[in-house]
Structures are given as C-alpha cells and as structure tokens.
C-alpha cells in the first residue's frame, strides 16, 4: 500500500524471460514494511517465481485481506489485477472470482491473524472446496499493525516483547490443511529463498488448493530472545524434510537424484516437480503419515519444512461442480437465457 511509486529504470542487460520481461517488470511499488521484514523476502521470492514461470502479469490476480502481509500485493506485479479486501475474507473473494473466471491464476496473500483468527472460517472452507489457488500465509505469530499482540499461530511459551508468554495452543496452518484435505501443502521460511521459490512455483501451477505456510519473522515485534518466530529461533530449529525442484514443461529431469529419495510428480500444465526427500522415512503422499511425522517433530520443537503433502489427483472446485470449461464470466448473457418464448411455457405451470 505504498504511495511511493518505484521508478522504472531500464537496465538493458537484465535477463528476460520468454515474454521478453525482466524481473523488474514483475515488481510493484516500494514496500512500506519495516526494514528486514520477512514479508519483503517473500515478495521477492514471488517475483522470481512468476518471472521464471513466464506468467503474463494481467493473467494473474492477487488478492489479500488486511494486515502487514495483506499489504504486500502492491509490492509485486504492478501490472496484475489486485484486490485488497476486508480482514480475513480473502478466501471468499478468491472463491467468487475463480468461480466466475477459472482461466486466471489466483494468488492469495494472507497472514496468521488474517487466516487463523478472524478468517479461520473462510480459510478452512476454501480448502474443503479445493479451490484452485496458491494460498500464502506469511506467518510471524503477531499482529504488527496494532503493535505486537499474539496471533493464533503463537507457540506455547513464546514470549512477547512486553508481558506474559503465550499459554494457548497454537493453530498450525499445515496440520489444519492436512486434516481438511488440502492438495498441496508446504512450509518454508522467508529467509530460505532457495527452498521457497520452487515451492511457490509448484503452488501456482498445482491444480487445487495449494497452501504455503511461510515463517516470516516480524523484526519489530517478534524477533527477540524467547520468541519462537524469530530469525534466530527459526534458523536454529528448522529442518528441510522434503525439498523440491521445479522442471518446466518439455524439459527433461536432468539432475542426479539419490536413489529412493526422488519423487517426480507431473503437474497439469505438463511441468513437473521433483520431490527430494531429505528424510527418507517421510512420505509426502500420505496424509496420515505426514500428520504423524509433523506432530512428532513439532512436539520435539522442530520446524519441519518443504513440500509436506501433495495430491495432484483430486478434482478442483469447478470439476467438483461439473462446470463448463469456458469461464462463466465469458459466456454471453444471450446464451444463458431460456429460449425465446419459453417464459410463457414456464408460466403455464403456475396456472
């Protein structure tokens, strides 16, 4: 929500993608978040992902609710349509938009307050519908704009800057999504772009509900000693469990993968993702096993990251409803009406 437009400076040597656009073309206005905010790193990961995926900016819609995270859609893709809605209601706006126009790519940006407190209802119901979207939670455990109250993702024992440690059970977005049947679930860290960019690419291309819970430290209100969402804490306790590579359509899988650890998955647009299991015990295709693993590690204080669950087979919202392939918003109104003279026949039934 910056009102400082970023000057467009031409750098002739910047690399271009297939559309002839540079990464700069995918930027937005200057961020007004605090210096060092995790959210800005996520913004730049999004920019890299869409640049590398050759996405036409106007074919992507970015939607958000309210909060620091929800401000970020103005900081990337200034040539895309954006919708900064009301607090906790990004999922419903995205649901309606997608229902009307299934051809666009939908990226929803939310936060832990926006999705796990005020918007918890909409978050879980969008999952139930397997809405085809990329849903990012920029998770810092606090309310920044109102100066540091705990959010529902705060861990037990996590200390605020002032006052008493949190004693309430946190809501974990990943296990919630797992239990509700989201079809692509990942967790990452704003400070780990190498892991994050492929995860975002996969989430954007996945057909169905893709959730990324991204730990994104709040430098102003939750980056101190005793906080479990600080940079230091996250770096100390986070573990890659499943990493992934993104392979564009028509490209071969070339990298050498250790036997037994690689798991290639074909996405609907013909591209592939290859899961690299860091922990060979982990099974990202089983909800039950993923859930068990997640609980055990989380009880041990670990933050496990990577693409934790994926299921490319489940139909998304439109297919569940049996809708036509053409976006509903593109159908001519004439074609939607009963045939000429039909009203008279309908009314006969009411005599």
């Amino acid at each position: 929500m910056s009102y400082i437009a970023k000057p467009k400076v031409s750098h002739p040597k910047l690399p271009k993608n297939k559309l002839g656009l540079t990464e700069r073309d995918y930027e937005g206005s200057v961020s007004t978040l605090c210096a060092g905010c995790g959210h800005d790193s996520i913004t730049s990961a999004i920019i890299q992902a869409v640049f590398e995926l050759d996405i036409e900016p106007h074919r992507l819609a970015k939607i958000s609710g309210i909060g620091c995270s929800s401000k970020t859609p103005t900081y990337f893709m200034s040539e895309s349509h954006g919708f900064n809605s009301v607090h906790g209601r990004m999922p419903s706006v995205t649901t309606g938009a997608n229902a009307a126009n299934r051809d666009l790519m939908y990226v929803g940006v939310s936060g832990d307050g926006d999705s796990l407190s005020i918007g918890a209802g909409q978050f879980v119901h969008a999952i139930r519908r397997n809405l085809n979207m990329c849903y990012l939670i920029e998770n810092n455990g606090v309310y920044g704009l109102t100066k540091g109250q705990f959010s529902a993702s705060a861990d037990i024992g996590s200390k605020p800057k002032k006052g008493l440690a949190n004693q309430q059970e946190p809501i974990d977005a990943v296990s919630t999504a797992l239990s509700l049947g989201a079809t692509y679930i990942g967790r990452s860290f704003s400070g780990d772009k190498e892991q994050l960019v492929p995860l975002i690419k996969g989430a954007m291309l996945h057909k169905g509900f893709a959730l990324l819970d991204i730990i994104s430290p709040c430098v102003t209100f939750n980056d101190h000693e005793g906080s479990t969402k600080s940079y230091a804490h996250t770096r100390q306790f986070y573990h890659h469990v499943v990493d992934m590579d993104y392979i564009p359509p028509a490209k071969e899988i070339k990298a050498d993968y250790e036997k037994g650890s690689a798991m290639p998955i074909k996405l609907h647009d013909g591209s592939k993702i290859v899961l690299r299991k860091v922990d060979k015990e982990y099974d990202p295709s089983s909800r039950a096993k993923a859930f068990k693993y997640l609980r055990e590690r989380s009880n041990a204080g670990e933050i496990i990251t990577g693409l934790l669950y994926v299921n490319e087979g489940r139909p998304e919202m439109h297919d569940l409803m049996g809708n036509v392939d053409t976006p509903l918003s593109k159908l001519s109104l004439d074609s939607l009406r009963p045939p000429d003279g039909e009203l008279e026949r309908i009314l006969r039934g009411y005599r």
Partner: protein
Amino acid sequence: MAAVNDVVIKIATVNGTGSASANGLLRKAIFRMGVPVVGKNFFPSNIQGLPTWYEIRVTADGYQARSNRTDLMVAMNAQTYAKDMAEVTSGGWLVYDSTWPRSQLLDREDITVLGIPFSKLCNENFDGVRTRILMKNIAYVGAIAALLDLDLEVITQLLEETFGDKKHLVASNMEAIRIGYDYATENFPCPLEASVMAMDNTKDQVIMDGNTAAALGCVYAGATVGAWYPITPSTSLMDSFRSFCAKYRVDSETDKRTYAIIQAEDELAAIGMVLGASWMGARSFTPTSGPGISLMTEFIGLAYYAEIPAVIFNVQRTGPSTGMPTRTQQADILSCAYASHGDTKHILLFPANPAECFTTAVQSFDLAERLQTPVMVLSDLDIGMNDWMVPEFEWDDEYVPDRGKVLSADDLDQMDKFYRYLDSDGDGIPYRTLPGEHPKGSFFTRGSGHNKLGGYTEDGSEYQEVVDRLLLKWETARTLVPKPEIIYSKDNKAAILTVGSGNGGCKEALDRLASKNIGLNYCRVKAFPFGEEVKGFVEKHEVIYVVEQNRDAQLKTLLMLDIEANPDKLVSLLHYNGMPLNAGFVVDSVLKEMAKACAA
C-alpha cells in the same frame, strides 16, 4: 360478511403432516374456476409438530392482501381449537374432526359448527398411518368442495396433472375427496351461503411466490454465480434458481453447467464471493434475510467504496435479532439503506408482488452494473413465500442487458493509460475493466483510501475528491431507479404512501375509503434514492399517511433524510406484528387519524 366469491377459508393443521399439498390443491381448484384467490401461510419456525395455518381468500375483485376475516375455519389441530374457534367471524362456520367430539367447540352461538369424522372415515377406507394422515388432508378438501360448491372435475384434473402416470394415486386421492364431499353433502345443507361460483377473472393470471419469481428473474438476467447461506425466508429463492438452472443451464452435449451455486460457510463469505465474481465480470447475487445483511455489512461498504456491482435479495422477516423468522416485516429499510460503517448509502428496490420480483431482479443486475455498486432488492416473507395471483409477467426477447461502463480489449488498445476512478463522463460513474482482458486494464481494487487514479492515498483532498464523486453518482442513480406508482383519485390534499407488500392492503383500503366518500391519492415508492416524482408527490400534499410494516417509521425517516420531506405532514400508520398487512388496518387507522385531526 361472507358472500359468493367473497369468502376466507382458514385451515389449521400441524406442520409436517403434508397439508401443504392439500391446501395447494384447494387454492388451485378455486383459481381454475376463474375466481381470484390469495394464499397465505402462517407457519412456525419448526420442522414437525407445531400448529400451522393456511389462509385462502376468495376475492372476486382480485384484491392482493389478506383479509382480517375468517369465514370458514377448518380446524384439524386439536391443540389450537380454542384459538381457532375464537377467530371465526360472526356468522361463519367451523369444520372439525368429530371422530372425537368436543362439546366446548359448541360454545359460540353466532357460528355454525360442522363436525366431520375425518379420522374415522379415513381409518375405515385407507391402510397405513402415513396414508391415513395424508388422506385426511385430502378429505377436508373434499368437504370444503361440497360446502363451497367447487367443481369436482377441476379437482380431478389437477390431481391428474400432479400425479401424471401414477393412476392409482389419482384414484386414491379422488376417493379421499369423495369421502369428505359425500359426508358434507349428506349431513349439511350444501353449499353454504358463501360459496364459489365459476367466473372468468383469472385469465392471463398466474399464482406464484416471490422467491420463485425472483429466481426466474436471475435466470433471465443471465446470472451465473449465486452464493448464499441458507436462511428463512430467502432459502427458496436459491432452491428455485437451482431447479431452473438444472433445466436451462446444463449443456445438452457435455452435461456441464453454465452456473455456479456456492453454499457458503456464512453470509460474510456469501457476499465476498459475490464481489469476487462481479469483479471478474459475472452477474452474481446472494439471497438472504435480516441477520444475513447484518453479517454482510462490512463487505457492502467495500463494494460501495471500491465500486463493485452486487445484487443482494433481502427477503425481510420479523426482527430484531432472530426475531420471528417465519413472520413478515419491512424493518430492514434503514439498515439496508445505510449498511456499513462510514458514509455509505445504497440503492434499494422494492417489488410489491411476485410479478415485480421477476422484473426487479432483472433490473437489479442492470442497475448494479451500470452504477457499479450494490443493489439491494427488498422483498419480504409475505411476498417471497406466499402465493400471489399476479398477471402473467412478460419478457421481451429483444432485451439488451446493461453491462455498464466496461472497457473492452479494443477500447484499451486505443488508450494510452487506464485509470480506474476517473469521472470522464461527468455522471459520477467511472469506467472499469475486467481482470485478464488486457495488459493495460490492470488496476488495484481496495477498500482503503484511494485517489481518482486508483492509487492508495492518505491525502485528505484526494480522498474527498473520490467520495464527493460517489455523491454525484448517487444523484445519477436517482434518475435511473424505477419511478413510483402514483394514482390520483380526485383533486385533494391527502394521500397514502407505502412501499413493497403494503401495496395490496393500501389499494384495497383506497377502494373502501372511496366507498365512504373519502378520496385519497396514492404513491407507492419502488426505489431508494427517491426521484423527483416522489419528491413532487410529497410536496403537493398536506397530509400523507405513510403505511409501513415496522415499528420505527423507517420509510418516513428515509423520506425525511433523502428528500427532506416535512415530518409535520407525514402521519405514520405502522403495522408490525409480523402478519401481512390487511386493508382493514389501513382503513381504521386513516379514519382514526382523520378524527384526531378534526378534533385538534
């Protein structure tokens, strides 16, 4: 007093016993005999076991409101015998199931009690508990047919239409009709003085409820996305939309649908979905009732400020809070007119009957897209769920929808740069683009402060420029919304002004007052903001009786707020007990107010 083709039948039953189809059969039979009818349901907020009533007013004159008489009470529910007996108009009749005789029903000497042993007769003739209950309902239709001299051939034909090939059902239902009919004929002097005589006053008329008509309007308007959360009394609107769509919106070759009905998790989500879909350019709507509007208000404010079309049907019920969910009222006028925090105001459309629900539904999408703002259609339970006889509504196959100012890809090609909130035409309505259409069309939709270019702002004058333009748009809306219905009786200075479902009772009251040599003029507002016609009407009268169905005179308040109507000449006649308005209330109230004014 009841007379031929002027009789009110009320049937008291227990809900969940299948009486609705029997009552429908009775109402249709009278209608098919060419005699106008009004059907009103008085039902509990409950699934099974509580008292429910259905009232059929037979009215040769074709009045649309309910009457405050009950000429023939069919008391089929022992729980309510006392209340039902008390309600019968002097000189009327009460039919009850005399399988178990009740001496207390004979207390009133001014009415005639007709005992018919329905249960006994049905037990003797039918097997199975459920069948016996259902047939008892049909049997009372038979008894009424005898008492009112209904045409049995018409009833047979209706049963044949209902059951089609299932001939055994036609036969068993006709047997039940016969049981009631024969018993009445053999034991009572049939027909009664108040009977039904075939006439030709239902030509080109249909009987429909407003929710069905509104749903049909949505189909004809080309709505594709309907999002909702179930709530009485609006639920049947989406149910009807679904059944019309199942018929007209499924591709015959691929079997795929050209509509999306989304049952949302709550009303907050339902309206969010409508806005998302409208943003993308689909015609989208949500049906709801008062509590739903309360939940939607934050998003309604966003739609107003960010200028996103939305169609909201509010089928009003009795508030406040949960109130009486199965009773009617017009008590959401103010909360809808100014829904949401901050300076907001919204277009309201007020259909008066199902025929207008159909046309208003189509119109609401045109206005929402033309004005890029939420449009609320304020119906109510009386219109939405009751059976109204209305003229067959017409549809012009040449209808061209108004999609408003939407720039096409070609338009954008010609443009240097697109800005979302510029008032290029001076009417307060900016141009919009649809996402995905063209690279130049992109803009950022936000509920936060924005300037005329669409950019974020915290600058006071930039902010004010936009909200001032919204006022200009409001004035444009004033010229586009439907004009009121105005009737002049003769040159005088007093008038009745009403809204929505107040129409039927008020028009009947005008006739009755005219018969007492009191000629009043009439204005029924059809929309908010009020146009020049309403303003002129209010100005030219000295006394205006404002008839509305709420406690707090909300319509009167709105007249004062929007067109600065002088409160000294607005006399409120308020009817808000949850029952539909009847002419008697209006007549009595007008006479009382006139007497008061004379005495003063």
